[in-house]
């Protein structure tokens, strides 16, 4: 157990150090408390940037073990620290986040809600971390391909035989998945010193902490504390999310990064905060390097955000597209490697848009409708996140006095509807849809549930703000 604690903590401290080094030029001049408030962001940024860089190194032919990690981490820290000294003061000021105004005290009762919400969240996270040290992932994908791919990248490199079955070698399942999550899991194992599957759950628990800290940092000053803490608690205490985090599913880090990118985009749009815009690119890059599902997930939030906010903020929305495009560019080496080695995607684009194929494949459609609807409406799995988000959107639209902004509110029900429809469509078009509906559909909901829960949180804040200002 000692090696598990020390190893995983050591690795994540390096990630945090890399993240802080890269953030340093921008948050320079903040108070100690200001620096500490970026700890969650630093962890997510450290994992994202180091992971994406190591993916590139793996594709270039390097073996990805502790030595490669040490070199890449040192280089990234050097870049951050060099920029710390050299970035012109004017640029720093433009990038930096002006300290948010202190929230006016909301009254004893609401301050009490904030205090209890924050305490419950901290307690739940403590219990989740302790639980992670005591549990091994229940999902077999973790030990049949996610972690083994990372071990292979360390010991064999990106060997086409292992990914494609050349030369009689048995290939890994799902060869089209990107490499970031496998690389991170292998680093955990190497830092622990032996194959200890509990390290997977510990890594997910640390990312859970980092995600909570990131959301709190990004929304601080936008959402008042009592709504913020209650909202983050509501988002992270989802029974199914916590179950998946103990399963070791890659969908959990994927949902953290996709959601964090959207929250960063929201912070950029509401505060014109350039650091938040940069984080959209960093978090999107990580999402694209974790799982192929990141493409439709990101497309949904990006297209809907554009549809509802374009009339109000054209240039900022264009900047969000630019940041996501930069994030997508980081996955170009992997896409090029896949194309060069003819690695097929799990779902064929031709099937998705093939009317004839879909018409003759309706048996899966019935199953998809039933299963996906079941996940979206199950109180036991996702409490009330989807109805809550829809309700907040409708209430916001009804109470909105400015007709141009009414469309913005309808983004909430549209998001739930479109994400539900997209999942139904994906499983309908999937040739192995019947199998995957049983064994993986439940995990693809994670990202939409997290976005809905945090969307409802921001929505409640905007409703209250609108009522007060109106």
């Amino acid at each position, binding site marked *: 157990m000692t090696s598990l604690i020390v190893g995983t903590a050591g690795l994540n401290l390096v990630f945090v150090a890399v993240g802080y080094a890269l953030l340093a030029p921008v948050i320079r001049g903040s108070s100690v408390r200001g620096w500490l408030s970026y700890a969650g962001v630093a962890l997510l940024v450290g994992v994202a940037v180091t992971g994406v860089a190591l993916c590139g190194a793996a594709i270039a032919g390097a073996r990805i073990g502790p030595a490669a990690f040490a070199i890449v981490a040192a280089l990234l820290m050097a870049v951050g620290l060099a920029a710390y000294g050299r970035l012109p003061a004017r640029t720093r000021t433009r990038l930096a986040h002006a300290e948010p105004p202190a929230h006016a005290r909301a009254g004893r009762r609401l301050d009490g809600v904030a205090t209890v919400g924050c305490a419950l969240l901290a307690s739940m996270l403590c*219990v989740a971390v302790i639980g992670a040290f005591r549990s091994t992932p229940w999902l*077999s994908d973790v*030990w049949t391909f996610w972690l083994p791919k990372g071990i292979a990248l360390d*010991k064999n490199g990106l060997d086409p035989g292992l990914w494609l079955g050349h030369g009689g070698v048995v290939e890994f399942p799902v060869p089209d998945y990107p490499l970031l999550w496998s690389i991170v899991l292998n680093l955990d194992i190497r830092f622990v010193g032996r194959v200890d*599957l509990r390290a997977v759950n510990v890594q997910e628990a640390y990312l859970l902490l980092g995600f909570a800290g990131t959301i709190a940092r990004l929304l601080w000053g936008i959402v008042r*504390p009592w709504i913020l803490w209650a909202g983050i608690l509501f988002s992270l205490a989802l029974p199914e999310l916590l179950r998946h985090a*103990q399963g070791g599913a890659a969908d959990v880090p994927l949902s953290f990064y996709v959601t964090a990118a959207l929250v960063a985009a929201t912070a950029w749009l509401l505060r014109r905060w350039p650091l938040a815009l940069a984080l959209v690119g960093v978090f999107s890059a990580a999402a694209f390097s974790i799982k192929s599902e990141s493409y439709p997930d990101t497309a949904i939030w990006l297209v809907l955000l554009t549809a509802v906010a374009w009339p109000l903020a054209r240039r900022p929305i264009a900047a969000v597209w630019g940041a996501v495009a930069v994030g997508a560019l980081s996955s170009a080496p992997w896409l090029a490697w896949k194309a060069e080695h003819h690695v097929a995607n799990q779902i064929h684009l031709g099937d998705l848009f093939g009317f004839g194929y879909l018409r003759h494949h309706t048996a899966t459609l019935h199953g998809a409708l039933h299963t996906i609807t079941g996940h979206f409406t199950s109180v036991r799995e996702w409490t009330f996140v989807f109805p809550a988000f829809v309700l907040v959107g409708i209430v916001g639209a009804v109470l909105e006095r400015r007709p141009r902004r009414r469309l913005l509110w309808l983004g909430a029900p549209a998001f739930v509807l479109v994400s539900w429809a997209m999942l139904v469509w994906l499983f309908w078009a999937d040739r192995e849809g019947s199998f995957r509906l049983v064994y993986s559909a439940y995990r693809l909901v994670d990202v939409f549930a997290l976005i809905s829960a945090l969307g409802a949180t921001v929505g409640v804040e905007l409703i209250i703000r609108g009522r007060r200002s109106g």
Partner: protein
Amino acid sequence: MSTRDRAAVAAIVVVLVCIGGLLPHVSSPIDRLINVKSNGAEPSYVNLRDDAPLRDAARIIPNNPTATYFLESNSTFGLDLYGAAVLYFPPAREVGDIRLAQWIVAYGVKPDIPATVRIVRRDRLGPNLVLVRIERR
């Protein structure tokens, strides 16, 4: 947040974590989250129960990317054996054809050795696992 608020947060956290940690049966969600029946380092196999022999086999199979092994099992242990092999045996690689293999890892079944190969070494590692080094005749 004032000092008093921070103290209140800390106090509530300590109390709740103590309740969760010391009284694990206080409620089933905390039971699940804290994983009352804690697990070990090995994968959560479906049927396989003895992980140690597989780690022993990994010490015998050469630490070399040119080493190859072939897995023999039945449907009960197939997924478990595959998972353990890809975790413990790299850089050795699994082959789908026994004629390409240097090692046979048989779990829960008697290894089926083709007539075209000869046995160089045979290790019984635990009640269910047999590791065989083979060479082509």
